[in-house]
């Protein structure tokens, strides 16, 4: 299932224009990729930090755009920069342990909010973030950011097959973990044990 040529060539043109210094073209790339960057960050760092980090990622990408050799891989390149930035977040906060405990963090945040739905959302996000990285990322892009599977594949630069399999398996795992939570039997956190 190849992507429409017109879409990819339009995007290549945007990347080319942005590399040539056209900031409005870079703004259009932001519009296309901001949800991807946001989703990749959201499944790794605390939600309150994500918006600032999204801006940082795009500013870094703007500075480094000249180092992108194959413009057709802008999405894969940007997603790697984003994951690096998430890693960097934990380095700067001097607490790698936090990467293994997103659930406690989400729970702590949700305690300040009495609204039941907000709490349920925070709990669900926390469970989603305990999934292995392979599943957590596409599932966050699908369920939180509202991207479709083909869109995720195109943006991140993966095949439709692998994204579809990971969405399917990730959803299965998420269902199981949410069911365990309902039964009050959530097992040990597994993020660090991928």
């Amino acid at each position, binding site marked *: 299932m190849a992507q429409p040529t017109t879409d990819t060539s339009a995007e290549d043109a945007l990347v080319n224009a942005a590399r040539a210094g056209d900031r409005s073209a870079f703004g259009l790339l932001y519009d296309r990729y901001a949800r991807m960057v946001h989703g990749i960050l959201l499944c790794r760092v605390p939600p309150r930090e994500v918006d600032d980090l999204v801006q940082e990622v795009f500013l870094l990408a703007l500075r480094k755009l000249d180092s992108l050799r194959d413009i057709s891989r802008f999405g894969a390149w940007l997603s790697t920069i984003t994951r690096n930035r998430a890693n960097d977040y934990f380095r700067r906060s001097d607490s790698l342990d936090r990467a293994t405990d997103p659930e406690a963090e989400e729970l702590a945040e949700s305690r300040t909010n009495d609204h039941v739905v907000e709490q349920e959302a925070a709990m669900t996000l926390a469970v989603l973030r305990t999934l292995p990285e*392979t599943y957590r990322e596409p599932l966050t892009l699908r369920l939180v950011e509202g991207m479709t599977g083909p869109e995720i594949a195109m943006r991140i630069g993966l095949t439709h097959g692998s994204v579809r399999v990971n969405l399917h398996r990730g959803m299965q795992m998420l269902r199981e973990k949410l069911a365990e939570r309902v039964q009050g039997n959530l097992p040990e956190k597994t993020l660090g044990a991928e």
Partner: protein
Amino acid sequence: MKDDYLWDGSGEPDPEVQKLENLLGRYRHDQPAPAFDQLSEERPAPRWGFASFRFSFQIAAVAAVLLIGVAAFLIIRARLASNAGPAWEIARIEGAPRVGWHSLSANSETAKLKVGQTLVTDNTSRASITLDETGRIEVDAASRLRVVASRPGHERLSLERGTIHATIWAPPGEFVVDTPSAVAVDLGCVYTLHVDDSGAGLLRTTMGWVGFKLNGRESFIPAGAVCATRPKIGPGTPYLEDAPTSFRDALTKFDFAKITPQERNVLLGILLVDARKEDALTLWHLLSRVSDTDRPGVYDRLAALAPPPKDVTSEGVLHLDQKMLDSWWNSLGYGDVYLWHVYERTWSEK
């Protein structure tokens, strides 16, 4: 798989997926684009038009002389200074790490580590080095770490012996560490690299992934995996740290021991039988490391544990079709191998 709705929103809506979409949609990105246009205007880019270009010939002459003088000074200095380029900031952690004759013995003391210089720690000292645009590296006791190259977009160190813990935030492919038995290329990660006195190495990735290469032999080491390396042989086959002992022992002998073809067959048998689903990482690497005769067995076992994507055929894999191998690797979810191909070429050229 009846997951059309999950895949692209088509088909009969899955109530559970819909509920999750509604619940989690509150975290969706909703920030407008920053003013990138204004950002460019804020850049210090002086633009002189003809209207502002009215000054006397005397001032112009003085400016020209000064400019030539400064340029000459910079050129001479650049030629004399072999250690030009960004310098790593050294901070002492304990003991008295040293660079040349200079030892850092106080906590507050810092120093620069420049191209050609070597940071040495003895059995009781440790240090860290940091470069703002690249990352931070902790250097354990009994280590020797030299800066081979340092310029924007390319940092290259050489770990001659000892252990480093690297946290790299530079873009993939910009940070490279040479060892006596392999070259480690950062692909966005946190990792530990150890080199013993014989030059043998061990790389352990904590986050992201690392590429390891020597003489055309390549290994990709994602988070949770380990890869050993030996002088004159290069990187072995990576494996997950929690792999069964029998699997790990068999792999070490398979990679590095001097063994007969029969013994090699036995070891391969152990690897295929003991491999778990998550050991697809190892089996994928073995595809290109076994003989043509052994490859179908590895293919079958890997396909049973991690079915290949639709665009991958057994015939293609058995002939080591690079695109199909790449596609299968990408389906394992460890990272886009395309990045490796791009950046491996990039640093190889540097």
